[in-house]
């Protein structure tokens, strides 16, 4: 399947180039819409989705520096009101849904931001789809040039990666700009050391694929109130990294519980007087 797609891609690039020489024009990408049609049907039950209506926006690099850590940032403005969930989709990845976030009360209803890093396997549309409280879907899309993100060798330092698995780090930020917002928001970052093996990384010595092992669930709370609950897939980068806004509370203690597909549980809490 993926081999066929590659071949198609190559041919279309050659074609586009050849035409480009004569006409200065390029052919549109082949079959991109069909993939999204399937995802739309399978993941969103074919429900109507409003595109670029201002309820959500997405920042992604047009050309990724590293296909295995492509930063994506989603903004949800106060005008969107209450938002139930956010789904990140990478159309052409083997498992297109990168992650789904269900927001809790501590996510607030002001200007919201959530940022993470994903793997991108080939040139693809990347989508942020939010479901607002009224049950309507809204989407922002970006095209990203990157490839090989899912099969790229796991770690730059393979021993270090396994030795530190499960280590977590939580930071909170006190940016002046976000304090001035009404209602006020703060930012936090949750990082977890985890290889997030995609199951597509082959060990040539054993001729075996390293079995999939990913952080599948993560629950993030502020002073006991949920900010979001994440369900993750293989497209989330090694060492999953989430940065997000939340509504400040009294202590602003961030508490994280994560679980991977091996059933291992990881817990961490930010220092009390978060700086």
């Amino acid at each position, binding site marked *: 399947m993926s081999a066929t797609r590659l071949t198609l891609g*190559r*041919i279309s*690039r*050659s*074609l*586009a*180039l*050849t*035409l480009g*020489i*004569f006409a200065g024009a390029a052919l549109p990408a082949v079959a991109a819409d069909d993939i999204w049609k399937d995802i739309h049907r399978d993941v969103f039950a074919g429900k109507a989705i409003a595109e670029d209506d201002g309820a959500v926006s997405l*920042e992604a*690099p047009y*050309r990724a*520096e*590293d*296909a*295995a*850590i492509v*930063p994506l*940032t989603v903004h949800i403005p106060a005008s969107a009101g209450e938002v139930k969930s956010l789904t990140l989709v990478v159309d052409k990845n083997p498992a297109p849904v990168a992650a789904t976030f269900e927001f809790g009360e501590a996510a607030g209803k002001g200007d919201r931001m959530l*940022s993470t*890093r994903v793997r991108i396997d080939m*040139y693809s549309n990347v989508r942020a789809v939010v479901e607002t409280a009224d049950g309507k879907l809204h989407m922002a899309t970006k095209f990203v*040039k*990157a*490839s*090989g993100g899912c*099969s*790229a*060798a*796991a770690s*730059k*330092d*393979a*021993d*270090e990666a396994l030795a530190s698995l499960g*280590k977590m*780090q939580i*930071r909170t*930020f006190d*940016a002046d700009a976000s304090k001035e917002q009404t209602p006020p928001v703060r*930012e936090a970052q949750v*990082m977890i*050391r985890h290889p997030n093996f995609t199951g597509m*990384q*082959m*060990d*040539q*010595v054993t001729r075996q694929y*390293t079995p999939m092992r990913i952080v599948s669930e993560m629950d993030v709370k502020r002073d006991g109130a949920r900010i979001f609950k994440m369900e993750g897939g293989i497209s989330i980068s090694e*060492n999953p*990294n989430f*940065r997000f806004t939340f509504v400040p509370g009294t202590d602003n203690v961030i508490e994280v519980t994560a679980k991977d597909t091996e059933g291992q549980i990881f817990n961490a809490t930010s220092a009390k007087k978060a700086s």
Partner: protein
Amino acid sequence: MQISGHIEHQFREVFPSVIALLLALALLFHSPLATAQESPSAPSGDAQRATEDLNKSAPAAAPSKSEQTTESLPAALKVEEVAPGVFVHQGRYELFTPRNSGDTSNNGFIIGKDAVAVIDTGGSARVGAALLAAIRARTSLPIKYVINTHMHPDHVFGNVAFKAESPTFVGNAKLPRALSSRADRYLAINKELLGDSFAGTEIIPPTELVSNRLEIDLGDRKLLLEAHPTAHTDNDLTVLDEKTGTLFLGDLLFSRHTPALDGSIRGWLALIDKLANRQDVKLAVPGHGPASMPWPSALDAEKRYLSTVAGDVRRMIKEGKTLSEAAGTAGMSEKDAWILFNEYHARNVSAAFAELEWE
């Protein structure tokens, strides 16, 4: 008038079929037109972009004109005798292209009384064969060792050309794992980058492994092989010719060519400090750069680059900046000091950021 009018008429008739023919050719041969064009935005560039983690084999943007060689690969590589019995071929400051056949890194050989050791073999079977020809033009002694300084394709893909000589292939104990987990990708992408000049290339992993130190003897000539903690990659190995004090650093040392970070920036900086204190080294051979460099000043520029990147990235992390913000701004003061900066720098910053945010 008449003649040109006639030609024009014929041309109009023929033109559509010319286009059709070119289209067909382009489809048949994948994209020979693209490579002939040498445009930075050619499709091969897109494919190459995919290879970023191969480091030495990334995109097709043109290096500065003065650095670009347009010659295709000669039958025997040009080598320089940097110290008695120590020969180095200087690779081009280029990304992999069909024209350079993957001749983009330095490789060398050392001739002892009884045997020869090869250090890195270039980026394709073809480069390896041209290196072998250069060796055979100078000695008929057996090639007892082929040593790889690390996993990157531009240093190991020529190994296959030495197979018939039955040498012992030597590398860092972590090299087999590093190669095996990247093999499919390395092969697929480099085949695309090098086109026909990739023919015959396969991955030959080392069988003699160095986890700490190993001394080998070429006959009245001892070489000290040392494995290092994670720096440029997690499988770096240096080779010291004890007789002349010549140290082959592989990609632990870049000169002029923008360094490529595929290991640990903290580890690399720590290792540079450690190496700079060594008294047994007189001459350095970089993995990318001139054939040889004075010691220890050879390390200065690279140390400045890595320190600048680490410093800027640490400051941005402290200020709460994001990975994408850092990629566009950190370390930009180094821009004019290096070749292929746009191809490697932003990726180095991303890698440094992902590492240093855990401090």
